[in-house]
């Protein structure tokens, strides 16, 4: 029961953040792929740096053990991402932001959007046996994280990631990676 209450409260905060970051809007998402508004990328990278630092610090202190990370099976992760990007650039939402968009009153997210996700989920679940085991059999490394897989210092890996994020923010804000656009 506690897990359900915690999930609900965390979901509220998650949806709140998605909304305030503008992710319930078509243009905020699609314009990342056009390099004309990189806010969503900044949002994602900031979240990653914060949570990564916190979690590896807590793990280092022995306060948490990580849940099993999503499995790495190179071809499936990559091909899934490639198909996902097509849908995201086309529709301008993803499963989480669709729920958030429905929450701020977008009936197009709530009705055809949610029906689409449910339909996709049904097709996937009904074809799972024919598709997924074959894909997951290729280059499968199991449930691993990079520092353990490559025997790297977690501290240095997180630090490197954070510095890369800062460099990215610099390139976006100061070095002109974000292009001007007239249609926003």
């Amino acid at each position: 029961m506690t897990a359900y209450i915690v999930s609900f409260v965390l979901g509220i905060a998650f949806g709140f953040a998605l909304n305030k970051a503008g992710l319930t809007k078509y243009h905020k998402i699609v314009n990342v792929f056009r390099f004309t508004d990189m806010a969503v990328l900044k949002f994602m990278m900031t979240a990653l740096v914060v949570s990564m630092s916190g979690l590896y610090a807590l793990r280092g202190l022995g306060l948490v053990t990580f849940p099993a990370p999503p499995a790495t099976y190179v071809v499936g992760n990559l091909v899934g991402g490639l198909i996902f990007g097509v849908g995201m650039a086309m529709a301008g939402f993803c499963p989480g932001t669709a729920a958030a968009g429905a929450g701020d009153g977008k009936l197009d997210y709530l009705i055809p959007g949610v029906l689409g996700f449910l339909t996709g989920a049904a097709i996937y679940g009904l074809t799972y046996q024919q598709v997924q085991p074959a894909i997951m059999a290729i280059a499968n490394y199991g449930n691993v994280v990079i520092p353990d897989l490559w025997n790297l210092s977690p501290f240095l890996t997180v630090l490197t990631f954070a510095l890369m994020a800062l460099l990215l923010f610099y390139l976006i804000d100061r070095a002109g990676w974000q292009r001007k656009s007239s249609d926003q």
Partner: protein
Amino acid sequence: MKAIWNYIRKEEWSPYIAGILLGVVGILAVWINNSLLGASGAFENLVGIIGKAIAPDLFNNMYFNFVMPAEITTNVILLVGIFFGSMIAAITSGTLKFRVNDSEQWKKVYGPQLWKRWLLLFVGGIILEYASGIAGGCTSGLAISGGMLLDPAAFLFIAGMFASGIVTAKLIYGKRY
């Protein structure tokens, strides 16, 4: 205090501030619940419940019985939370309102016809959900949740998503890209 409240009420926050909030949520999910955030999985649980009610034989398979069981999981609750969290955020900024297609940029690219918008969101939903299944998660469950643990799968997924997202946007926008 007043300044903080005024900031909360802004329609759009700095992506860095909103990102910190999401990062803290990600930490708490692991710390308190020993779980990861996710969204696409919830639709699989939900369709399992619906499917078993309408066509019990068809949906009586390994996937809906064991892999993504047809029940109200914490992920479903999280998804409902996302819905209400965004609603609360919209109330604070005074932007909560029923609408059927409010994107001016969308209308410029695809035209103003409502059926087109609704059809493309439906088809987009199918593509996104199926792709999430193959990849092992979506932007929340794989890119964010995996990324924060430094999971190679997350970075493979993000790389694929950006590569095809850029190409797709270029194709759709053509000269206007």
